[in-house]
């Protein structure tokens, strides 16, 4: 008997062969085997009959027995014509940046100056406003904070946010919101922006846009863009743009399930109080504490002392504190710290040259009704396969909490490294003396230590769940630690996302087996990134 007869192809391979789906390098071998092996041919014939029966069942018995659609199908020709008409309407006006549009704008302005003050204002379209506002959005929005209000509570977060919940310990609330935004195809990372609004509205097959003027003392103070649609999870969205610079300051989203989310800006990069919309000032106040006269230039070394002081307090681990070095001062802004924390920050930063400490006090960050929510642990049911592999639901819940906490702590550390990389790029690092560089290295080592520990825990968990180990990937070629910071954050986030999908999410559409496989790869990438950062930090010596 030939070797091919002894080693029958796997059933999946035979089926793939018959379906024309087999990899090219296996086709010849399977074909030769089938020529010689009556058993496999018989198997295929059996399967053929099975498929035929199934197809008959599907297309006759099943299809005929399924209930008919409750309404007649829509006239697709008609609907496509409507879509085309909407598109033409949206694109009829030239983009705001084009010469023609500026001619129109100039004409409107001239007319407005002399006789009809609001003519041009009223003519502006939603698409134009969004286009222009997108162009004007400042690149640096690190200090921008937003308040996200829902029916059941509120949270304050950075306007640009690539991670889930870690900063403000609001896992459940933030995760639920993130899910709602994802389902609605709306950016949760940057929700209060013209780009995100435009990206969502442009993805809709059809929508209705309108622009309303908001006036204050008779003068145009803001534009409100309102979009309604019959498609997707969002039924209505409103974005308020400040008239003077088209800066987005407020947004309200209505979801199809009757939920709503209101987002308002709390603080901006370059506040100009006389121009700020009421929403910016009505809900909070700002106190300033100047620690030392800012009469001379501050240096990266001064900023490093600020970060080291924050690090000693662990205030660099996701707390809503920002540090900005300007030529003559280092502005440290903390969002509503409790009294004890506030005193500790004041003490830790006192005496550092050029520091200006600022406390921003928005409305209390707690649910609108009921008591404040404690940091809640995972409470939903684990995936049945996960629970089964771990023994029972109780053990699974405990296991999941441990994993998600490890992942949380790793994310916070990865972001801390990224922030240091942003604030101390290679040229700033070079400006530090040996002692200061040693302080920076020590902070980085602390973060890496936690990352490594988290990686070990998650790898062990993978072994427990799937009896498989993540691959040991070679770290990328040596580079400055700053260069790898983004990859470190991204790989940490990838692991975190997969852990969430694997352990907690229901209906993600992916199988446990597939997620475990992806997690294995992601942990390998994560490990390589941690190793690369560690090597680079060692090479700072």
């Amino acid at each position, binding site marked *: 008997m030939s070797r091919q007869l002894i080693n029958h192809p*796997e*059933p*999946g*391979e*035979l*089926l*793939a*062969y*018959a*379906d*024309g*789906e087999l990899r090219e390098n296996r086709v010849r071998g399977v*074909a*030769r*085997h*089938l*020529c010689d092996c009556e058993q496999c*041919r018989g198997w*295929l014939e*059996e*399967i053929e*009959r*099975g*498929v035929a*029966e*199934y*197809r008959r*069942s*599907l297309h006759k*018995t*099943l*299809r005929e*027995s*399924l*209930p008919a*659609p*409750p*309404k007649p*199908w*829509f006239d*697709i020709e008609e*609907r*496509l014509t409507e879509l085309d008409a909407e*598109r033409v309407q949206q694109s009829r006006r030239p983009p705001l940046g084009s010469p023609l549009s500026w001619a129109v704008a100039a004409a409107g302005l001239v007319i407005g100056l002399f006789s009809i003050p609001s003519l041009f204002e009223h003519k502006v379209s939603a698409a134009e406003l969004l286009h222009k506002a997108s162009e004007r959005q400042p690149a640096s929005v690190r200090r921008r904070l937003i308040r996200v209000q829902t029916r059941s509570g509120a949270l304050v977060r950075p306007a640009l946010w690539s991670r889930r919940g870690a900063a403000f310990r609001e896992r459940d609330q933030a995760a639920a919101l993130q899910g709602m935004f994802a*389902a609605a195809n709306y950016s949760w990372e940057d929700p209060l922006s013209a780009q995100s609004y435009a990206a969502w509205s442009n993805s809709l*097959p*059809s929508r209705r846009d309108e622009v309303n003027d908001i006036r204050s003392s008779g003068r145009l103070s803001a534009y409100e863009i309102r979009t309604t649609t019959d*498609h997707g*999870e969002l039924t209505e969205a409103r974005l308020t743009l400040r008239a003077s610079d088209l800066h987005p300051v407020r947004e309200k989203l209505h979801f*199809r*399930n009757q939920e709503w989310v209101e987002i308002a800006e709390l603080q901006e990069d370059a506040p100009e109080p006389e121009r700020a919309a009421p929403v910016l000032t009505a809900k909070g106040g700002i106190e300033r504490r100047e620690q030392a006269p800012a009469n001379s230039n501050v240096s990266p070394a001064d900023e490093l002392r600020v970060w080291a002081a924050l690090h000693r307090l662990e205030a660099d681990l996701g707390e809503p504190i920002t540090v900005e070095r300007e030529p003559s001062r280092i502005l440290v802004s903390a969002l509503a710290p409790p009294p004890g924390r506030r005193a500790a920050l004041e003490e830790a930063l006192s005496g550092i040259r050029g520091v200006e400490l600022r406390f921003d006090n928005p409305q209390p960050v707690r649910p609108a009704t009921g008591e404040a929510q404690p940091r809640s642990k995972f409470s939903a049911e684990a995936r049945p396969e996960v629970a089964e592999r771990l023994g029972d639901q109780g053990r699974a819940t405990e296991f999941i909490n441990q994993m998600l906490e490890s992942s949380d702590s790793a994310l916070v550390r990865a972001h801390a490294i990224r922030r240091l990389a942003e604030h101390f790029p290679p040229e700033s690092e070079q400006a530090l003396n040996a002692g200061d560089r040693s302080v920076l290295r020590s902070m980085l080592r602390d973060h890496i230590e936690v990352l490594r520990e988290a990686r070990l825990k998650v790898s062990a968990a993978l072994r427990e769940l799937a009896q498989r180990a993540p691959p040991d990937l070679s770290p990328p070629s040596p580079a400055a630690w700053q260069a790898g910071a983004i990859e470190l954050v991204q790989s940490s986030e990838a692991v975190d996302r997969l852990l969430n999908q694997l352990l907690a999410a*229901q*209906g*993600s*559409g*992916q*199988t446990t*087996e*597939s997620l475990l*496989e992806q997690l294995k790869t992601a942990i390998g990438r994560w490990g390589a990134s941690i190793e690369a950062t560690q090597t680079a930090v060692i090479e700072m010596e």
Partner: protein
Amino acid sequence: MIRASTVKILPLDSEAEHLEAEERDTLSPRERVTALFEEARADVYAYLLTLRLGEAEAQEVTQEVFLRLYTVMRRGDNIVNGRAWVFRVAHNLGLQSLKRTSARAALTPELEQQLPSQDEGPEKKLIETEKQARLKDALGRLSPQQRMCLHLRAEGLKYSDIASILGVRSSTVGEFLSRALVKLRRSVHE
């Protein structure tokens, strides 16, 4: 002895693909979407029902999918296999829709529950044969993934398309299918 190269148990898609490629070259997005809507809407609707969507929801999602297809085609996206695209988007929208109405317990197709029962008055004319009853029973014993693979394969989708819809690898689709078919054959003929 038969020639192995003649063993073919399911219709290959190459012909359909060839036709579709020709259509891509000659038809406008509007014509392609309209033709596909007429041809595939009942299949997509049936698939969504097996995901346990209600009839109204399933119809709404089906219509939405084709409008989305038109939007992306009009934008210039190159949709190689419109049928597979439609099933993939319908699958995702269907799951989202189910999440919204989370009263339903499972997110998996339950084909066996959709098959007519002998007791159902209006459907009495569809009297099941003994074999069909066995088939129904066997379908009930398949895993949700196996059932979805089988359904999508019977709809003419390629392994890579099914893999993309279900979030698994193409080789896994082959495994799911062959195990499902073996189980079905055993159940029907035992």
